[in-house]
């Protein structure tokens, strides 16, 4: 019964943790109210300031009392002009303190540490009245329902309703906040931070959308790493609340809010002495990305100079979250399977325990039907009792673990873990289904056995299969795997194949474990009788612990498989990033390329990005020349060799052709002299995603239409020359890995782009910086500066990251993303391990007479205990021995099937023996820990009249 409770508790715990992490990760990557971009007032004088001055100066956005700041009148004019997607906002920094409830505000200890957050007032009427269907605004307004309950509130009341990001709320750990008095005005602080981190998260490196930290996340720590803070705020020594000036904020959770802000209605923002006169609007949020024409129109309608901050790249969520979600899903499914085996095993053990009495009753004439009914009724009662207890234990365990996991996530990995909002019925239903499915499967066994069995001999554990049968079984299993593997053609197929792989491997373990144990027994020296007994006993035990072994085997195989996969992914990503990030530093900016000021002696290589639609592709044709297929107009693909393709949007990125670029380009495969041809514009490199998703091979030619720059809407079919010096060739010269990028992408030589006209339109906002000659001159060289001055000059224009910083951030993001899967993996392994140990303990009870005989023959008590422990460990080792090849195979399937079909990328399978040994060691340590406790209390009492085992 304990095992059933354990299985259910484990399942529920894993599901809840799973859900918490999934929702947390999702929440951190979901639409924010800044996603459509912002319009803020620009103080022109600030640009002229020196870098140092700018770093310490008060931001000028929304300066109090400035006449030319944005006003409600400007807002009204714009909305009347049809810009209904604009929502006015004003922002201010405050220190917030937690309160248990409204009444306890005055009792808060002054030692409590305050949290610095932005109070963001938005025009909620405009937000909610915006047509929501089918766009981001819909999700935003849905998430912001908390604000619907208040219509501004009374200016006299000190109660307001505020929306907060769930991760922020989780960190604060309270439902009510209060603040009094502004600490400092902000320079759209949250926007800037989030944008900076979104740039990191989007992985925009010089080579395009190419880095793993695409797993979007809160970026606060990233900003901290880079030394950026919201401002020189005084030490947070607490606030003495004053009831007269205190504002109490009732928190409502919304994922649309950025993580360092609390959003209230604009009318709640402007209260008491805070008025538009004293604190003007900070800017306008755009609920939809503004086109270039719209931006120009808005600028013309405003008398002030405004800056458009397009942060739509934040939504380049990338695929690590997808990979992460798939991992979580897989872990949940895995735990369900493990739970199924555990319950099945528990039922089997219960049946075995009752078997002698059942047989005696059969011998006394009771019908098998009655006995089966009685047995199943008893087991049903156990299941009915165990499921709610197990679920309650699981909920309790998850709630106990949540703060720990959340704390660990936020402190170590800057990841989000929130207390999940789960569908109770579906969660419980899964638990019930698993338990009763096990019971249903199990019900077939006793009914069959009891119908014929009248002695224990006939129902004893089945003898191991003969070697020939095992061989046939093994060949059949491997053949089945080979056939089904060949049939994989979609992600669903790949996942089904994983299930088949686990089941087939389980069946092979069942037949091979006794053979393996017997083989070991044969080579064990009989001169060591206790050791010989351990091995022989294990061989015997192996045929009676099949189901428990299966649960443990699946958990261990998955553990090894996931670890190998993650390790391979990590190694591939790190190696790839290390090579790919060739420049000493990278600058992320919001400005146009022409506006950038590049210090003298600093070389900058911009990343230019276009996008086009792949409308067709032609197969590699040795006779075909690139010049014949170099048109991007889409008119040349009507030859027989052409085939139609889905009109998929493809990112076209520039790639430098200097030596550093050449050395940095990692390719999976390429045609001869690929680089030379690439340099001379005779072809392109494509990423794995494009190659896999469209079955593009080396030498194929792509046909693209509707090429346009990322910053303008104009189609290039008519203005092709504006982008390129000469019509580019789209013949595939090589395929390169592009981990973390879900998009199809191709690389064109930077020299192919029209330097004179393309700059601003195609500039992606990223520059590779090195301290040599510029490869693409931007801006005006200035007077000679020191290295520090150069860095400062660059940093004031955007966010400057060193190569090491980017690498560290990327790998941190990677680790953060996968740490939970490791945790879930260990949880599953722990549950399987405990269940395995419980099963072994129960079985060892039936084998207790052997232990007492050992004692009677002169074996010491310690040696007997060690022999028992040895049996367990030996069985675990045998299971691990079988789990290792299947684990590695599973990793292969994950990498080359699941990843390829789900994310269109593959990476080399790196089998680290040390990692596998550590996985197995950890598993064995868990088992030893679990069984060592009851073993310590084992007292093998010697008795002359002990019964022989049944």
């Amino acid at each position: 019964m304990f095992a059933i409770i354990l299985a259910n508790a484990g399942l529920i715990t894993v599901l809840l943790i799973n859900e918490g992490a999934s929702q947390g990760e999702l929440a951190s990557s979901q639409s924010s109210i800044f996603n459509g971009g912002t319009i803020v007032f620009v103080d022109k004088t600030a640009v002229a300031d020196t870098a140092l001055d700018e770093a310490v100066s008060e931001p000028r956005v929304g300066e109090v009392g400035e006449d030319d700041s944005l006003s409600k009148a400007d807002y009204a004019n714009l909305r009347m002009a049809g810009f209904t997607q604009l929502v006015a906002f004003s922002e201010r920094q405050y220190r917030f303190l937690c309160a248990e409830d409204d009444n306890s505000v005055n009792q808060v200890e002054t030692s409590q540490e305050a949290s610095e957050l932005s109070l963001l007032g938005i025009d909620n009427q405009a937000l909610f009245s915006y047509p929501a269907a089918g766009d981001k605004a819909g999700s935003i307004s849905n998430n912001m329902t908390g604000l619907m309950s208040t219509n501004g509130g009374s200016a006299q009341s000190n109660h307001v309703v505020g929306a907060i990001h769930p991760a922020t709320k989780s960190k604060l750990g309270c439902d009510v906040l209060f603040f009094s008095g502004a600490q400092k005005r902000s320079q759209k602080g949250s926007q800037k931070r989030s944008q900076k981190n979104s740039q990191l998260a989007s992985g925009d490196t010089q080579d395009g959308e190419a880095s793993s930290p695409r797993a979007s996340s809160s970026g606060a720590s990233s900003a901290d790493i880079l030394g950026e803070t919201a401002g020189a705020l005084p030490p947070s020594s607490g606030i003495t609340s004053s009831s007269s000036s205190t504002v109490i904020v009732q928190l409502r959770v919304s994922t649309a809010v950025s993580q360092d802000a609390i959003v209230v209605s604009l009318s709640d923002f402007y209260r008491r002495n805070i008025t538009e006169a004293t604190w003007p609007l900070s800017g306008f949020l755009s609920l939809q990305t503004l086109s270039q024409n719209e931006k120009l129109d808005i600028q013309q309608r405003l008398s002030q100079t405004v800056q458009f901050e397009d942060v739509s790249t934040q939504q380049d969520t990338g695929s690590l979250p997808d990979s992460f979600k798939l991992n979580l899903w897989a872990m949940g499914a895995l735990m369900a399977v493990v739970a199924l085996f555990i319950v099945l095993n528990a039922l089997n053990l219960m049946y075995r325990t009752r078997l002698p009495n059942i047989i005696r009753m059969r011998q006394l004439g009771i019908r098998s039907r009655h006995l089966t009914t009685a047995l199943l009724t008893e087991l049903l009662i156990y299941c009915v009792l165990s499921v709610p207890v197990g679920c309650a234990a699981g909920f309790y365990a998850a709630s106990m673990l949540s703060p720990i996991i959340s704390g660990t996530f936020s402190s170590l990995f800057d990841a989000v873990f929130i207390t999940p909002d789960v569908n109770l019925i579906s969660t419980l239903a899964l638990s019930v289904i698993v338990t009763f499915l096990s019971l249903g499967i199990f019900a077939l066994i006793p009914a069959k056995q009891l119908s014929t069995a009248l002695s224990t001999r006939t129902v004893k554990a089945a003898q191991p299969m003969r070697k020939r049968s095992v061989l046939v079984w093994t060949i059949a299993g491997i053949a089945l795997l080979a056939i089904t593997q060949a049939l994989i053609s979609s992600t669903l197929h790949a996942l089904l194949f994983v299930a088949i792989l686990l089941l087939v491997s389980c069946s092979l373990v069942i037949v091979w474990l006794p053979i393996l144990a017997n083989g070991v027994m044969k080579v064990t020296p009989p001169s060591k009788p206790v050791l010989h007994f351990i091995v022989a006993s294990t061989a015997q035990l192996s045929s009676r612990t099949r189901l428990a072994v299966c649960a443990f085997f699946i958990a261990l195989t998955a553990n090894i498989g996931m670890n190998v996969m993650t390790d391979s992914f990590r190694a591939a990503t790190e190696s790839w990033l290390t090579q790919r990030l060739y420049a000493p530093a990278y600058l992320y900016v919001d400005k146009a390329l022409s506006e950038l000021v590049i210090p003298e002696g600093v070389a900058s290589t911009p990343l230019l990005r276009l996008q086009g639609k792949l409308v067709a592709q032609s197969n590699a044709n040795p006779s075909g020349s690139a010049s014949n297929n170099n048109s991007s107009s889409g008119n040349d693909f009507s030859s027989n060799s052409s085939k139609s393709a889905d009109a998929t949007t493809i990112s076209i990125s520039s790639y430098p052709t200097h030596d550093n670029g050449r050395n940095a380009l990692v390719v999976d495969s390429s045609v001869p002299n690929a680089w030379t041809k690439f340099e001379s514009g005779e072809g392109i490199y494509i990423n794995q995603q494009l190659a896999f998703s469209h079955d593009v091979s080396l030498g194929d030619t792509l046909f693209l239409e509707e090429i346009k720059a990322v910053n303008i809407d104009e189609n290039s079919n008519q203005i092709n020359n504006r982008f390129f010096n000469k019509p580019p060739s789209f013949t595939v010269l090589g395929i390169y890995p592009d981990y973390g990028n879900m998009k199809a992408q191709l690389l064109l030589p930077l020299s192919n782009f029209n330097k004179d006209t393309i700059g601003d339109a195609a500039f992606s906002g990223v520059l590779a910086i090195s301290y040599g000659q510029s490869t693409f001159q931007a801006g005006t060289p200035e007077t000679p500066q020191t290295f520090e001055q150069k860095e400062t000059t660059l940093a004031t224009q955007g966010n400057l990251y060193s190569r090491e910083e980017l690498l560290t951030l990327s790998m941190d993001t990677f680790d953060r993303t996968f740490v939970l899967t490791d945790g879930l993996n260990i949880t599953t392994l722990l549950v399987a391990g405990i269940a395995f140990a419980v099963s072994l303990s129960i079985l060892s009870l039936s084998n207790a007479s052997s232990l007492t005989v050992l004692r009677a023959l002169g074996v010491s008590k310690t040696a007997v205990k060690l022999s028992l422990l040895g049996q367990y460990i030996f069985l675990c080792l045998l299971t691990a021995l079988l789990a290792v090849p299947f684990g590695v195979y599973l990793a292969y399937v994950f990498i080359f099937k699941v990843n390829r079909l789900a994310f269109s990328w593959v990476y080399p399978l790196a089998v680290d023996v040390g990692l596998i040994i550590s996985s197995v060691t950890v598993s064995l340590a868990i088992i030893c820990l679990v069984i060592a406790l009851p073993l310590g209390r084992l007292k093998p009492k010697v008795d002359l009249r002990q019964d022989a085992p049944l």
Partner: protein
Amino acid sequence: MLKIEKLTKSFEGVTAPILCDLDLSVNNGDSVSIQGASGCGKSTLLSLIAGFDTPTSGTISVNDYCLYEGSESPSQDASSNARNLAAAEKGKVGTETVLNNVARNKSNVDDFRKNHLGIVFQSYNLFDCFNAWDNIAFTARLKGNYNPQYQTELMEQLNILPLAKKPISQLSGGEQQRCAIARALVHKPSLILADEPTGNLDEATSQAVSDILYDVCSAMNTTLLVVTHSPDVAQKAKLPLWLHKGKLNEEKAPIRELQ
């Protein structure tokens, strides 16, 4: 030589001791059978001699190995324990040495059982995981005097050599009991305790098995103590005894008293 002096064993909650000042002396190579009513303490006596249990008082020694020499007081003297350990390290304990509560020194008793004792259980208690050969060889391997040739001869004598490679589960009751006897003899112990060795066997097999047991022990100069309900088996012993009211007698108690 098995020597038991004034052996008393009481159980908690029972006023009368099950064994009361019991004395027994058996020379090497001699055999003793003990009969008695159910519950009279036969198996308790064997358990005490085997060191499975500790007596309330009295002395038990096998050859010069003092298994137990104690008083009524259950207190344990630290210094005596230290002496026991020292004696145990020497591997030999003289009967003249005053040792209290030796039986409490578990390792001593384990060593005694391993090196000097052979036990034949009523329910055989063979290991399911071994075949017949490995079952029999277990005690010799444990003791370190494993001799395949000797084991072969022993098994031939017991007529179980053809069964050597068979799993225990495929042997009949008589075959299993003969294996158990071989296991008890193969490491050449100085004392064999047999608890109802023929209790599960038919008459013919019982006779054959008991004959072998007595003959082999006699040939090996091994002391044999058999607890049995079978008069035929009991009568084959050099010294057939009856256990009644906690004491050993050469005469059977009257039926009225047994009842």
